């Protein structure tokens, strides 16, 4: 059974009057442990696709089956539970809570799954250790570099042991050296922990870290082939 199964999924926006097909009957499967890069020019539908994969948005038609469960018909709160349990998010702009320590930022998903405070701290500490920030537990985001902030975000994505991490241009705000470090971290998580990683990027050298590259254009998949990391 594939981890992710997308069947004829469409997303239609009706802005003003003319309907806009952001996604046009897309079908694909992503297996456990894959490292997928999604590429395409802006307006190609890749962001819409990521939002849908991330259960932030629902398809207009078609089916999205995640670990054997059809999530395309779930309501807001049910989707929130899926995001909490099965998905980790990493954003271009980090999206950490300001005035909140790294530890507490990482704890956030556990807060909403009702884990008691003591247990939260311990797991957040472990998670930050995984990304190499065990010495920055009580730093606030404004006291951390961009790379460190993105590591905190990755630690947050890891904390619920979600099988999938969705990363939307995770290196977009980072310099090339830090970008490489972050990508190495993703590769390590993918190979050592078998976490499925799906990331959106513009840059082919970032896509080169992946095992599979999917290209979008005008709401459709135009290319689905191996990436540069299949050695």
């Amino acid at each position, binding site marked *: 059974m594939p981890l992710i199964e997308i069947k004829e999924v469409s997303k239609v926006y009706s802005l003003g009057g003319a309907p806009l097909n952001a996604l046009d009957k897309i079908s694909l499967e992503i297996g456990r442990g894959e490292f997928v890069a999604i590429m395409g020019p802006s307006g190609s539908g890749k962001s819409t696709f990521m939002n849908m994969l991330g259960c*932030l948005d629902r398809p207009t038609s078609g089916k999205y089956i995640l670990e054997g469960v059809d999530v395309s018909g779930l309501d807001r709160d049910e989707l929130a539970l899926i*995001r*909490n349990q099965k998905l980790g998010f990493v954003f271009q702009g980090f999206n950490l809570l300001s005035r909140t320590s790294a530890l507490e930022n990482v704890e*956030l998903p556990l*807060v909403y799954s*009702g884990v*008691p405070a003591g247990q939260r701290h311990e797991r957040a500490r472990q998670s930050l250790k995984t990304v190499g920030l065990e010495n920055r537990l009580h730093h606030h985001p404004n006291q951390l570099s961009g790379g460190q902030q993105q590591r905190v975000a990755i630690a947050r994505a890891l904390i619920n042991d979600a099988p999938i991490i969705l990363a939307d241009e995770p290196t977009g705000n980072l310099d090339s050296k830090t970008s490489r470090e972050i990508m190495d971290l993703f590769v390590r998580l993918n190979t050592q922990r078998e976490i499925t990683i799906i990331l959106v990027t513009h840059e082919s050298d970032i896509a080169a870290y992946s095992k599979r590259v999917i290209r979008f254009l005008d709401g459709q998949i135009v290319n689905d082939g191996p990436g540069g990391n299949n050695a």
Partner: protein
Amino acid sequence: MINLPSAIKVSARALSVNKMRSALTMLGIIIGVAAVIAMLSVGAGARRQISEQIAGMGSNLIIVLPGGATSGGARMGAGTLPTLSMSDADAILKEAGAVEEVAPILSGIAQVVWGHRNWSTNVLGTTPGILVVRDWPLESGRPFTDQDVKTSTKVCLVGKTIVDNLFEGADPVGQIIRIKNVPFTIIGTLAPKGQSAIGQDQDDTILVPVTTAQKKLFGTTFPGMVRIIMVKAKSGDDLPAAEKQTNDILRQRHHIGPKQDNDFTVRNLTQMMQTAEQAANVMTLLLGAIASVSLLVGGIGIMNIMLVSVTERTREIGIRMAVGARSWDIRTQFLIEALTLSLIGGILGILIGVGGSTALSAIAGWPTLVSALSLILAFCFSGIVGIFFGFYPAYKASLLDPIDALRYE
């Protein structure tokens, strides 16, 4: 789902980030609650004062005064005619069904002497019924009896002021004092009653049997004449009936024709006081209503700030939703923030309100009464204000679209 301690912690942090703003928002509630407490306590104080005066006077009380004499066309005012008698009082007690007890009174000012001390006081000649009519218990000793009245015994009951001035507080029962040079044995002391509604010292009084007063103290031209008859109705509901029956009996006894004016006056004091009490109630309600308006304004302030806060923290809400916060979690967080503002404001408002009303009674001398009920009411009301005005912003936050919220700059 978020657990309550975590939700409270998150809300507390959000409030502490903008301390000045939180404090100013709270100020609206503080002023509102303080005003409600202070106003209610002023109203309750006024009402208690009136209630005490009513209780002091004796409840369900009717006073019958003689009519005025007309001398050469000039009417002389109430009480100038000796038209009321002991037998009038007996008739009222016997015939009026709504009347519980009567007390005829013949009073006057007299000099009282004990040892080398003397004191000028109000001496009331009356019957044992006075103690019932005026709800006047004894502090010590025994009351005089109908037998004392019948035989004109020289016994008396003395008020607290007499005890203080002649006996310096010592128990005077058994002592003999001279009233207008007539020796009277003190057989009991009256419980203190304090000031009357018009500021008269009600304890500056000596009670003697009415017949003794007539014969030995205030010799009257007409035997059996009394100055006032006090009538106590069986209950508050019986007051109007008692008033009418008294009126009818006296008209009949005094042979007053259908078109002639009364030669006496019947006054219902309790009713007058009850009117005053109702006025105090209305005043309390009015003051409370005006104060509630400021609480309402405070609530609108909370709503305003919460709406601003939701907009400012759209991105934060988006992040929380992305990692799994449900609508309920977001709503709870903002509701707790609003509730915290209003409840802390409520507690501070209560403290300031209680302090303010204490200061009012200390400085301005107003009678104030802070009741536990008004405190609980004000606290609950501030909580309700918090939930009511916090709900819309919280609801708005919970309905944000996570994608839009995450993109919000």
